[in-house]
């Protein structure tokens, strides 16, 4: 099942901070919904383990994430592929970070994915919205990360 995902998010972080965050496996592990572990297997290439949970639906997912076409600190492409108990997923997305003010920037993203297997065949009714929800969750956690970083910086 094909899915397009695109949007823009305002983030309270500088372009450089956001770039670093998006390239930091620790940050990503915290923000990718259900991410248990990211292991670097080569430069800009990671194995990921996810435990996805959306309401009553849940499943594990093992995959690979690769970053490419990097133009720091503004642009990169991310490719994901893997499979798990719910089925398979592959996708690719382009990120562009635009500075919109002092300490704020905008992340434009656009990508597409393909879902296969069980969940494509029995869950298509809710799949698109779930993807939207997970994306929202990701940005919520990313914002929280920068909020926390700021608070930590303020405290010290």
């Amino acid at each position: 099942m094909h899915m397009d995902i695109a949007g823009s998010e305002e983030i309270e972080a500088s372009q450089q901070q956001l770039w670093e965050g998006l390239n930091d496996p620790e940050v990503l592990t915290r923000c990718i919904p259900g991410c248990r572990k990211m292991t670097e297997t080569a430069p800009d290439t990671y194995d990921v383990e996810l435990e996805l949970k959306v309401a009553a639906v849940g499943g594990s997912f093992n995959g690979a994430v690769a970053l490419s076409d990097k133009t720091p600190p503004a642009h990169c492409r991310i490719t994901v592929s893997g499979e798990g108990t719910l089925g398979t997923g592959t996708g690719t997305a382009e990120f562009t970070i635009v500075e919109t003010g002092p300490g704020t920037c905008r992340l434009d993203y656009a990508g597409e994915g393909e879902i296969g297997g069980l969940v494509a065949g029995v869950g298509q009714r809710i799949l698109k919205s779930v993807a939207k929800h997970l994306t929202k969750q990701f940005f919520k956690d990313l914002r929280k990360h920068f909020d926390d970083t700021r608070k930590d910086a303020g405290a010290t």
Partner: protein
Amino acid sequence: MTDPGRRFVSTNRRVREDRRFVAGAGRYVADLDIPGTLHVALVASTAPAAKILGIDTTEALAMEGVVDVLTGEELSAGVAPLMNGLDTPRVRRFPLTVGQIRYAGEWVAAVVATSRALAEDAAEKVRVRTEPLPFVIDAETALGPDAPPVHPEHGSNLLLDKTFDWGPVADDFAAAEDRLSLRVTWGRNATVPIETFGVIARWNPWDEMLDVWASIQMPKYADQIARALKLPGNAVRVHYDVDVGGSYGVKRGIKHTVLVSYLARKLGRPVRLIEDRLENMRAGDAQGPERIFDIDVAFDRDGTVRSMKMRALDNAGAYAGRAPFQLGKPIGAIVGPYRIGSVQYRAMSVTTNKAVQEAVRGFGQAPTNYAIETMMDRIAAHLGMDRLELRRRNLIRADEFPYTIPSGSTYDSGDYHTVIDKVLAHADYAALTAERDRLRAEGLCAGIGIAACLEPSGGNSSFEPLLNENNRTSTWMEGSRVIIDALGGVTVTIHTTSSGQGHETLAATVVGEELGIDPDRIRVTRPDSLSSLPGNSPVGSRMAIMLGGAAARAARDLKRQLVAIGAHAMGIDPSEASYEAGTITAPDGRAVGWDELVDIGHRRFHDLPPGTNPGLAASFIQQVPTGVALPEDGKVQMYPCYSFEFHLVLMAFDPVLAKPEIRRYVIGHDCGTVINPHIVRGMTLGGIAHGIGAALLEEFTYDDGGQLMTQSFLDYLMPSSHEVPSVEIVHHCTPSPLTEFGQKGSGESGYLGAPAAISGAVQDALSPWGVTVDKLPLRMSTISDTIADAETAA
């Protein structure tokens, strides 16, 4: 409808099988409890096309209860490829994928464990490493020069492309006053029985015997298993005393059977595979025809149809199997009930990355009937003629039978005009039309659909040599045996499984009729395949004709023996003796009764007439009545008998919500002599329900990513009691001159015309907007969007 000369045939007797089913005492394959049985769960591919790089079974093998994990690599080394009907030797198919995945859901590995749940647990842990390959889903795309090859070894995606020219097509087109073209599309639906396919296999190494219990409806089943497993034919024993929870064509299961049989031999334990619904939907290899029809038709302005060119492009899915033959059977009724003088027919089967097709009720006839009937409606619309009048003008007349159609089949009998007149009278056609117009005036979309269709019956296999010259199969027989035991009880045997068609009732009725004894006193059994006479299973609406014929003829032979014994006992010539209800009577009134006849037959051999075999047993193997000829010049006698049905439907719906509702459904049905009215009625009503599903609801839909979107009953929509209306059946009987009682087939009735009729009603409802929807199923949103577009355009 009872023939005065008949005591049991055509009478409204109960169906004997029903007793055990209402008591929950049917014996389905999943009900069998064979000690020590292991359970299989399948590992399904998620990609529509991929190269298999490796399969890691280590983790799965270490799990609780797991006995084995089988891959295609191992299996294909031990078994022969599955039967391939077409002449495409490089399109090879094994139960488990070998090397390359060809559709999403395809079986990659089989996990064997002590319970189904544990097998499923382990199936999740089988790791399949793959490299994606390009894939193709759409039949027309698959024909393109750049299409990814589904079977690279085969060279193209075309499995079959045969053009037949029957009669002076070019001349008729040149001479015709008018012509038109149309395209209609039949969506991929199937019969989807409520029981999935299931099979249990047990190997006994000391007897060297493979026992198989399966939910099966498959000609040459035992032969195919033996061949694939490289076993002698007499080492495979298929148990026919298994009840089958519905089939209507699709319960073929060779791949399932070869898989579990291999495992049973390998593991030395009985092994069973009962598909779960997900396995059944995505890889049961039981999806039906998916067909694009392109038609050019030539006709005169008075409505006379002169000639038709039809191209049928069928999407066979990932492997060939027998399913492409479904392009062949319709050749036997390619002009429907009409006098069309010449036909060009191009049959094309293309392979794609979808699940494999299987036979579905009618074996390709329902889609073809839908195309022909839509064509007739279009001609009428084009000429501004009444649709009924157009049909009447072209229908074969009662005095023209037997009638040979351009493709070589001779229709046995019929009286189409009378059936239609009876239906129109019953329905009060004028009132029905007025009702449609009243509904339209209320602001609803309303339409009347009609369909005049044939049900070719008495299935043989003529389409096989017609589409594949290397296949010299000419026909299919069916056997039955009748014995009278030493206590005078009568037992009839059936040598195949049944899936709801009431064959036990059929056999008992005709034997009872022949012998003049109460059918309820006759026992009907199903021996295993090694104890059976040759037969070909209930396909192609053939059992009333073939099993009915075999059982009746065997009983007649027994009756002849009884007459000979009785005559001999009375010292008269058998020609002087008469038989009535088991008693032989001489012209002078002397009689020998049943008990006496049985006693002589079983014990008093010294009283037997010379040359008579002791034991009171008779067998008969029924040949298809129209014979054994192979095709010549692309022409062949397809099925022997032709039943007729005429559907008349009134539908209405809100133009925005567009939920088509059936307001009235009348069908005229003529299948010759009816042997059991309950059964024939049930077949017709059930077939219509099935046709409603095909027309409005059911489709195996794949998305652009090659994924099957309808893997569950939440998305594959079968009609419920709300969607199927009460149907009025108008009977007519034109006996077949070719069969024992004048019977024809009825197992596919209803389904063969309902989709055409329902589509016709919807198109009539759309006619005020001047638009049509030419693809089944007719989805509500498509109908509504089409109307909305037409209104916007206006």
